[in-house]
Structure formats: structure tokens, C-alpha cells
């Protein structure tokens, strides 16, 4: 139990218990996750690494409530996700989690502003336009609000996507190789934004295969063939987190 911790910022927000994911391709079964168990606390800054096909995206999609595990449990803020109704799941995806995709996934023919407003339209949030404007200036795109995706560079697109993920101030930001389609300079700029978001108290989980990206996080979880093979604090981790991670592993 974490109850011994006096720091409220260290409550567990994500807990995976013996998580399995099996894909069926024709008659063949692909075992993408083979019993992953781990927990992530509030305001952690986690990198998920591992070779291609090791199950990183599969795991992140499950964390984002975009996919469901074949077996095992996923507790989000103590709540068993498998027990949530479809509309509660939509609510979780809309309010609690912000997802950033490798390929940005912006609506085509739609301005940056409207893309950022999109999550808020589904919760009928007020002041959508103002909040979207704030979000865009926060990622440094205050002067690109009426540009459409085809008028933006890759890095700019990813900033719009991050502004969209942040729009509803979710507790958790999940990013699947957010810098995978970007050059390293642009990638570092994106990481600067994540650093700032983390400093605001949000929990961040980034899938990456780039060491320098992972090095900017505080904890690295490495997957191989659907198993966690490494879970440790990085040099940037504050002492408490480092201690926590090392006792966990």
C-alpha cells in the first residue's frame, strides 16, 4: 500500500495487474502483452522503451482506454476500467487522459483552433475558443491558429495535437512516439513542452525508442516480447522517485 506515503502527489493513478493482450490474426494468435504488472504514480514522467513489436503501443492504447486487455486488470485512479460503461469510457478518454499520436491525427481541412476545441465540444465545456487559444499559445502556436494541418510543419502539427491533448487538463498524458516523425531538434522542442506540462503536475507516459528522449524522463520501463524487462529511474529523477522505482523492481 502506498498509504504510508505522506506525499499526496504520490498516489497511484495507473495500476496494471498481470495484463495480457492477444491478437488473433487469421488462425494465429499473437501474444502482444504477456502479463505486465506495474503501477504509475501521480506526476510521474515515464518513458516506455523496447524494440519494435515489443508491445509498447498495445500497452499505451490500453492505458488510453482505446483498447481492452485480453486478460488481467487495469485500474485507473483505483477504478477497474473493465467495469466502465461505454459512455463512462468516453468520459475518461475526454477528461482524464490526453492522447498524443505519432501521426498527429489532426482533422484535415480543420483549423488548428478547431482541432484543439474538439475534445471540449464533447463535454460542452465553456469558453472553448479562449481555452483553445490559450492552449495553442502555450505550445507556441499563438500565431498559427487559423492554419489547417496541411499548412503546418510536422513539429507544428504535433504541437497542435499536444494542445488538443491538454485542452481538458487531463491528469494523464499518453504519447506514442510523439517525436518519431520529427527531426531531433524539433523532437527536443516537443520534449520541452512535455517537461513544462510535467512541471505543472500532470502524469506523463511517453513511448519512445530514442535514448535521448527517454533520458529526459524520470523513469524508464522497457518491454521485450510483451514482458517488462527493465523498470528504473533515470538520472533526472528526483530522489524519492528513484527510490520508489528501485524498490519496485
Amino acid at each position, binding site marked *: 500500500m502506498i498509504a504510508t506515503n505522506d506525499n499526496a502527489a504520490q498516489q497511484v493513478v495507473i495500476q496494471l495487474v498481470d495484463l495480457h493482450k492477444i491478437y488473433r490474426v487469421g488462425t494465429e494468435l499473437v501474444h502482444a502483452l504477456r502479463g505486465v504488472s506495474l503501477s504509475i504514480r501521480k506526476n510521474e514522467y515515464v518513458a516506455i522503451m523496447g524494440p519494435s513489436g515489443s508491445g509498447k503501443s498495445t500497452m499505451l492504447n490500453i492505458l488510453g482506454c*482505446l*483498447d481492452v486487455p485480453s486478460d488481467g486488470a487495469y485500474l485507473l485512479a483505483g477504478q477497474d476500467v473493465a467495469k466502465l460503461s461505454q459512455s463512462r469510457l*468516453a468520459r475518461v478518454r475526454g477528461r482524464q487522459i490526453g492522447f498524443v499520436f505519432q501521426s498527429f*491525427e489532426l482533422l484535415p481541412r480543420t483549423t488548428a483552433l478547431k482541432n484543439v476545441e474538439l*475534445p471540449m465540444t464533447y463535454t460542452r465545456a465553456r469558453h472553448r475558443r479562449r481555452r483553445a487559444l490559450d492552449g495553442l499559445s502555450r505550445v507556441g502556436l499563438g500565431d498559427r491558429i487559423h492554419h489547417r494541418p496541411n499548412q503546418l510543419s510536422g513539429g507544428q502539427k504535433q504541437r497542435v495535437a499536444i494542445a488538443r491533448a491538454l485542452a*481538458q487538463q487531463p491528469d494523464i498524458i499518453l504519447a506514442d512516439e510523439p517525436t518519431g516523425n520529427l527531426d531531433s531538434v524539433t523532437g527536443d522542442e516537443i520534449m520541452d513542452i512535455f517537461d513544462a506540462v510535467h512541471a505543472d503536475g500532470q502524469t506523463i507516459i511517453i513511448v519512445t525508442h530514442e535514448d535521448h528522449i527517454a533520458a529526459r524522463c524520470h523513469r524508464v520501463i522497457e518491454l521485450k516480447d510483451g514482458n517488462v524487462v527493465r523498470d528504473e529511474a533515470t538520472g533526472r529523477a528526483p530522489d524519492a522517485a528513484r527510490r520508489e522505482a528501485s524498490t519496485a523492481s
Partner: protein
Amino acid sequence: MRLLYAVLHMLVAIPGGVALIGGAVVTALVQIWANKVRSLLTVLGIIIAVTSIITVVSLTQGFGDYVTNFLRGLGTNMMVCYPEWIRGPRGEFLRPAELSITDIQSVDTHADAVRRTSPVVFHNSTVEYGRRQLTGINLRGTNELFQPIRNYYVDLGRFYGPVDVENAAQVCVLGREVLRKLECDESLVGDYIHIDSQRFQVIGLLEAKGSFMGENQDQVICVPWTTALKMYPEQRDYLAFFVEAAAEDKIPRAEGQLVRILRQRHGLKPGQANDFGLFKQDQILQEFHKIRTIATSVLAGIVSISLLVGGIGIMNVMLVSVAERTREIGLRKSVGARRRDILMQFLTESVVLSTVGGAIGIVLGYGLAALASMHPSMTEVKVPGWSVALALGFSAGVGIFFGLMPALKAAIIHPIDALRHE
């Protein structure tokens, strides 16, 4: 596109639920605009359906008004009684039965549901004035009651009176078309013309009635029936009469009395057919109702087939749209869209699509109705408000009905499957 976005911004500024629906509609309009040609082809069926509704409804309505007006112009309670030819045992015509003037008088005195009667002699006459000669003019030999019975009055000069009828005076009243064809003005009143070589004084001009079904009603000359019979004695065999019932609801009663009196006078035994006929206005109405029923069923056929075609078109294009935008659906779901949000998005799109089709159809229908109203017998054509409402209702209904399946399909897509979609 810029304009659309401006509208979009404006709509989103409207607070509350209006903005939400407005936003969905604008999103749908943007989507439809992005696929203009495809959208237009899709809603062709709906356009045809709505155009047919609007045009046919306004034409039958307008034509109905036209017929009603014409009947009112005939005098609402009027019937024409005419002799029916007598048939031999093998159905061959023997000779025309004769309606005698005493028959007419008898009906007038004994039938209490009959208010007025007038003998009527029909003839196609030739009219001459100066060098002008007109042939085929409808001559009517009547008594002095023609005006109230036919609801057709002299508006210049006078109509002939009982004395003129009694004396078989050589006086006549002209319809406006005769005047026009004689190339005369109103100063002809008081002057003399020749009708089939007989000299007549023009004592009055009838008001203009216009034409009905392409036939000019003003090409008519009225003379005392006594004068007409003197000129055309052979017309005695065809002597008919106008009968005016005391009131519109007395028409059946007047008809019953008339038939009874005439059968008695002609000595017809039970089972023997009438040797006279009756022409009533409701026959015209019945004819018209028959036409309207046919038009309505043809309309219903066209409308249901084209709505079905249009609906299937919409379903098809919506299925394509859902497939094309699978990734978008996945993205929307990943940022918090519920199933019902996606359902409403696509349902709104199909309803907007079909309603746009409906609106185009309404515009086309208006155009066709306006075109039709240029025809002389269609001047009363107007588009009734209920037909517009009906047409819009139909198109929206088609949008909902045929959009439901694709929208449901979109709504239940699993977010990650949608996002993986190529």
C-alpha cells in the same frame, strides 16, 4: 469555404444547445460542400421527389381553383336539361325526343325547388358588320332570365326583356370577344349587325368572362329564344332549357322534381329510360376529381419511388462517408466522443444532405409552378405552404431513416480499430 468558416464561428458563438446543433449542422454542411458533386448526385432522387410534390400539388390546387371559379361563373345552381335521342329496339337512333316549351313551363310552375328556367336554343351563326364577317359564333336563344341564371350580366346597354321575347324582337346582346373580332368598340351598342342575314339591333354588351380550357367564353351572342326559333325552326328538336335550383343544396331536389314531371309528361313507363338528359356542374367537378385522384396517385408513385431511390443513395453515400472517415471517427472517440455523439454527427449529416436536396427540389418546384402559371388556364397556380412543409418533412424523414444504419455503424466502431484503419 472562408464564408462557411465565418458562419461556423458565428454559430459556435451562439450559447448553449443551439450552438451544438448549429455546429453539427455546419460541420455537416462543410462536409457536404467538400463533396459537392457526390452530394448532388446523391440527393437527385430527393430533388425529383420534392420537385414532383411541389409542382403536382400546386398544379392540381391551382387547377382546382380554376375549375371552381369557372363553375361559379356558370351560376352555381344551374343545370341544363336537353332532349335525348330516342333509340329503337336495337339501340339505333330513331329521332330526337322533343322538349316542348310547355314542358319547361310545367317544370317552372310545379317544381318548388326550381327558381328560374329559360328555354335555350343553340346555333352556330354567322355575324356580319360592315365588311367583317364572323362564322361559328355561339348563338343562344334564351328568355330574359339568362342573366341571373347564368350569372352573366350585361355591363353596357341592356338585356332584352319579356316584351322583346314575346315579340320575337330582332335584338341581340354581344359577348366581348365578338365585339373584338368585329373590330368594333362599345359604340356598336345601338347599331345594327346581321346574324345569318337578318338585321339585329345590338342593345347590350356582356361582361368579359375570359376563357376556360382554351375556349373563349365571350364568343357568344344572345337573342330572344322566340326570335331564334323563328330563324332556325329545325332547332325546335333540340330545344333545351336552363334550370336554376332555388339554392345549392336544393339541386338534388330540383333534379328529382324535374325528372318526375318530365317522365310523367312524356308518358314514360317505369323501366323506360329518360328521353332527356341533365347536365350538372358537379359532373365537371367529378371529372376534375377523377383527374386529381389520378394525378395524386401518379404523384404518390413517383414520390415513393424517388424517395426510395434517394434514400438508398443517401444510405450508400453515408456508408462511403463513414468508411472514408473511419480514422476521424477513431480520433473523435479518442478525445471523448460518445457513441451518441458520433451517431448524431452522421445522422445530422444525412438529414442535412437530404434536406438540402429537399430545398433544391422546393426551389425547382416553385420554378415549374411559376412556369405553369404562365399558361392561361393555370393562372391560379400557387404553392401551398403545407406542400412545402410536407416535402421538407419527407426529405428529413428519408435522411433519418436511411442515415440511421450508417450512423449506427459509425457509432459502434471500436476506437483503436478505427485509428488503425488505413
